[in-house]
């Protein structure tokens, strides 16, 4: 059982080089892959987001004849099919928070930091792995929602194809939107470190702040609303742009800046706080 202890230890081998980001990335992939709840959450996210889009589009088709003229005029088949993203952003936010907060609540962070004492490198590994994973999942959700939705949208309701104007942009942007929100959540998780508190902060950002801003005088709220992730999300998936909002491209850049700020603060705190 312990051949380890009886044999004299051979002279310590000389290791060339040093540990690197590559090992951290491999390790973070294993971490994400080997916790069943994470894999379940990703699966549930895909199924529910696509399911929600399917439900919305099939209801639209079956109720089209009862819809009023204005409703028919403003109907956007692309946005309708991507509606599931507004559910998906919560699921992906919880996952983003958990990537860091679960390490603190379970204590695994001590083992992780002992293995990777260069703390910023550890965070960078998480950002890369979770960012790529959520981008892939986000695009899967977006494309699946689009194609399932457009299949269910049929006459008399109008539908779009991927080559319709703005469709490809909306669908790919939708996946990117989910990915960036996941990274914002990862940053919040790194700053707050407690799962419940960090999830609350994230949900507050998406749901509570818009309500507060809506209560402000419209001259103020019109200028502020465009900075909200939810407004950006709407712009990204919509064919018709609200003049008060950023364009989809600028909107995604604004979200990327939020993510960079949140992750930057998380990185600073990770390096300077005790684990």
């Amino acid at each position, binding site marked *: 059982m312990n051949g*380890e202890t009886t044999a004299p230890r051979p002279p310590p081998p000389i290791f060339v080089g040093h*540990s690197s980001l590559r090992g951290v990335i491999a390790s973070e992939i294993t971490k994400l892959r*080997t916790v069943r709840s994470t894999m379940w959450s990703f699966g549930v996210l895909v199924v529910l987001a696509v399911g929600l889009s399917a439900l919305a589009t099939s209801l639209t088709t079956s109720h089209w004849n009862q819809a009023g003229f204005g409703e028919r005029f403003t109907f956007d088949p692309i946005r309708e099919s991507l509606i599931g993203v507004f559910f998906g952003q919560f699921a992906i936010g919880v996952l983003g928070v958990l990537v860091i907060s679960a390490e603190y609540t379970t204590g695994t962070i001590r*083992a992780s930091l002992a293995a990777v004492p260069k703390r910023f490198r550890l965070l960078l590994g998480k950002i890369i792995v979770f960012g790529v994973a959520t981008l892939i999942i986000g695009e899967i959700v977006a494309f699946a929602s689009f194609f399932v939705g457009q299949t269910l949208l049929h006459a008399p309701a109008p539908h779009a194809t991927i080559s319709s104007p703005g469709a490809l942009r909306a669908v790919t942007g939708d996946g990117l939107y989910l990915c960036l929100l996941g990274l914002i959540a990862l940053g919040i998780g790194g700053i707050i470190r407690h799962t419940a508190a960090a999830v609350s902060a994230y949900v507050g950002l998406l749901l509570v702040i818009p309500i507060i801003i809506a209560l402000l005088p419209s001259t103020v709220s019109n200028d502020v609303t465009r900075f909200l992730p939810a407004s950006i999300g709407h712009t990204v998936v919509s064919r018709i742009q609200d003049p008060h909002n950023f364009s989809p491209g600028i909107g995604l850049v604004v979200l990327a800046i939020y993510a960079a700020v949140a992750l930057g603060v998380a990185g600073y705190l990770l390096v300077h706080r*005790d684990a």
Partner: protein
Amino acid sequence: MIEVRGLTKRYGDKIAVEDLSFNAYPGVVTGFLGPNGSGKSTTMRVIMGLDHPNGGTATINGRPYHDLDWPLREVGALLEARAIHPGRTARSHLWMLAQTNQIARSRVDEVLDIVGLTEVANQLTGKFSLGMSQRLGIAASLLGDPGVLLYDEPVNGLDAEGIRWVRNLLIGLARQGRTLFVSSHLMSEMAQMADDVVVIGRGRLITQALMSDLLAGNQQSFVRVRSPGIDPLVVLLETNGARISRESDGSISVSGLTEEMVGDLAFEAGIALHELAPVNASLEEVFMELTEESVEYHGAPGGSQ
């Protein structure tokens, strides 16, 4: 080799470790002994680069932990056995750690075998007993076959067989030439394992010494005596250079004279003895003696300084 120099760590206003210096050398088990709350875990966290010191340095083979090229191949540690994600299997836990330092996958199975967890390698660690978690933590510490190993209270929660196993494993690792730094709040545990011992209390160094010197130097012994003629006996013994302490049960504790000398003196003076017994302080009493000034929480409210 671990070198700690002038280490100070505060949490807010509370001083956890103050101006602590000691060395842990290769080839021996260095015991790190102190009452609960004396700063042992804090010191270990600082050595491992997990907490930032307010002053002083802690180095491993001359370098701060943060600067090690291959941390897991140079240092292994078990700080908290329960600090594992309960939703991951033992094998996955070890594999994700191994990958960070590019340690081969085959090594995961080797260390599982060393600690005897091969059978449960694919079970979720959430179902593990404390003893199994302890073994998994030890397996993780051995992943990189490191020359420096730190263990914080490694026998906590183990049964007698487990304790013996850990003790033999750690001693064996030291005999291979590795630096073993092992904390405990139990003197008796340390006495069976450590060659060298660092004793701390309230975050300050009390002594660093060879275990054998520590035991010899602090071995308190006295002679317990009961006698119907206790008062003349006290006078007689004191004139012969003994220090006497009267106990509440009517007996006296005599130090400075052996039991033979006490018996002979009493016989010559014609004083009857009802009890004459040498008493040696236990290891725990030696430890208590060393640290009593520095124990943070006393049981009795009147006992605090």
